[in-house]
């Protein structure tokens, strides 16, 4: 079955991306060697979120397993923009799939620098804006406010013609309002959901387990939340939705497409199986067939009763 598709103009051999920050292709190549490239699990690679300056990330512990999920408080460790462009980007260009670079900043000026410098690189097909960060001026979390999100998009839109994707946070009452703001500001797509605010208590000691006290929940536990938000958002905007949150197999991926996503991303499941993205793709023809679809496009076009 032909699974090829596209997302805001980026041609894809199939609908399966990785969630930002859940698959380090360069590290995976070190560990698995060239078989990673020969059998690359995703149709499009999304980088982990890049910031202006290098960041060490959060103090340990950064992970805790929860019922059917996990909490992380990784804290965006990374080489910073220069380090990424110099050292990481050339390697990522060799993956053989389109590349989306995720960026985050806490002021519009930094976002502008990130977008303009990343966009000028030919290797980059699109840019994802991680807006789950407090605006240093307003103090508000940009992605929680429709108006802040719209304003940010209006500032960034003129910089590049490459697709700009806004990664929505699920930690709001109405994500569709933020999505509408993103669209009004000129976003080409939204991706969702990011992790859900969560915490865990140390099973032995009377303290929070995570070094920074709280983190974000992901995995199958959040899938029902993600499906509701994808449905609400895709009904409210005209731009396409990249759906994710607890996808583990073709069936759950297809649920997101039925809920209104155009393509999907696999996150936490990569940790359980490095080839999870490929498994999802391999299962899609049968899953589409079981639901009576002759092609991916039919499912993308279907609307739920």
């Amino acid at each position: 079955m032909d699974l090829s598709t596209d997302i805001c103009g980026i041609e894809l051999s199939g609908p399966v991306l990785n969630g930002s920050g859940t698959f380090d292709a360069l590290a995976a190549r070190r560990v698995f060697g060239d078989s990673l490239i020969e059998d690359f699990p995703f149709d499009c690679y999304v980088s982990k979120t890049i910031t202006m300056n290098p960041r060490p990330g959060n103090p340990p512990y950064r992970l805790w397993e929860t019922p059917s999920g996990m909490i992380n408080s990784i804290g965006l460790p990374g080489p910073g923009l220069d380090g990424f462009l110099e050292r990481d980007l050339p390697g990522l260009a060799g993956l053989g799939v389109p590349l989306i670079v995720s960026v985050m900043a806490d002021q519009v000026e930094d976002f502008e620098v990130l977008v303009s410098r990343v966009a000028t690189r030919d290797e980059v097909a699109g840019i994802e804006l991680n807006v789950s960060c407090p605006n240093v001026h307003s103090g508000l979390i940009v992605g929680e406010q429709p108006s802040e999100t719209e304003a940010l998009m209006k500032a960034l839109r003129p910089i590049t013609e490459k697709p700009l994707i806004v990664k929505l946070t699920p930690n709001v009452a109405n994500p569709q309002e933020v999505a509408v703001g993103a669209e009004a500001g000129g976003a080409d797509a939204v991706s969702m959901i990011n992790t859900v605010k969560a915490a865990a208590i140390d099973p032995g000691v009377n303290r929070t387990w995570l070094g920074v006290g709280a983190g974000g929940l992901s995995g199958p536990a959040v899938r029902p939340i993600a499906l509701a938000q994808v449905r609400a958002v895709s009904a409210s905007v005209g731009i396409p939705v990249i759906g994710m949150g607890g996808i583990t197999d073709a069936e759950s991926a297809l649920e997101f497409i039925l809920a209104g996503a155009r393509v999907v991303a696999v996150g936490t499941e990569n940790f359980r199986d490095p080839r999870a993205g490929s498994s999802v793709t391999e299962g899609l023809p049968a899953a589409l067939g079981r639901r009576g679809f002759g092609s991916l496009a039919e499912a993308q076009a279907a609307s739920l009763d």
Partner: protein
Amino acid sequence: MSADSGGKPGRTQAPFGRRLCEVADSRPAGGYRIFTLIDEDGPSPGPGQFYMLAAHPDWAAEGGRPYLPRAISHARVSGNPAGGQRLDFLIDEVGPGTSRLAAMSPGDACWITGPFGGRFSLPRQLNPKAAGAVLVGGGIGIAPMAVLRRELVDRGIPSRSLLGFRDREHSGGIDELFGCEETRLAFEDGSSGHKGYVTDLLLQILEGDDSGSAAVYSCGPPAMLEAVRRICLDRGIPVELALESPMACGYGACFGCAVPKADGGYMRLCIDGPVVRGDEIATAMAGEPAVG
């Protein structure tokens, strides 16, 4: 014995993706448990490397956990008559993941990815003047020490093993993994061997030695590792430690397994470890509750 893929020296490359292995055996080992997997497709792992394991089916048992695979060091590698290799694992049942692994029976299946991480260096790589190796293991941490010791024996490199335990209950695996090899034991409760910490034994040995010719290897609980690290650093003795840290993926994808580096920032223990040099890290007790 292992193909280097550009990371740490001596990294054995793991097959891409997870594979389902048969459980060949599972037996009690003191307070712990040893089980054996038949790995038909994996390369031979080096001492210090580890695997991510998940029992199948029903990974995700009562209460929705375990959900993620668990990092476990191999405790022994041997040939399998029908092909491939047999991997032994020593398990301490501390929570849902280790309990589910310990509950597997022969004939059951287990998801495995790996081997991951880098291996211990050989004594001469760690210290060009090394005459032999001192292995310091504690509790469940005797597993990688046993693998290293076997390799040293095979290569004819002299080594001494110092093993420390809280009590008899926490000394499982020693008979099977160290057999009749010569070991020096410490029990905190004095039930046998030296009464006290294994670091007491290490200090005795180092006092008698020319520390310029020592190469120390250690694996065990964080507090023990930190004590070993300090003893060695204070004396300028090269030491390699196999650390633990909560891991989700084991192959560098999640950035969860952060260990603070001596020069600031963090390393990913799964790909930059789990074997680290004592002077590479800021502490072997990252994330542990403050004492006192």
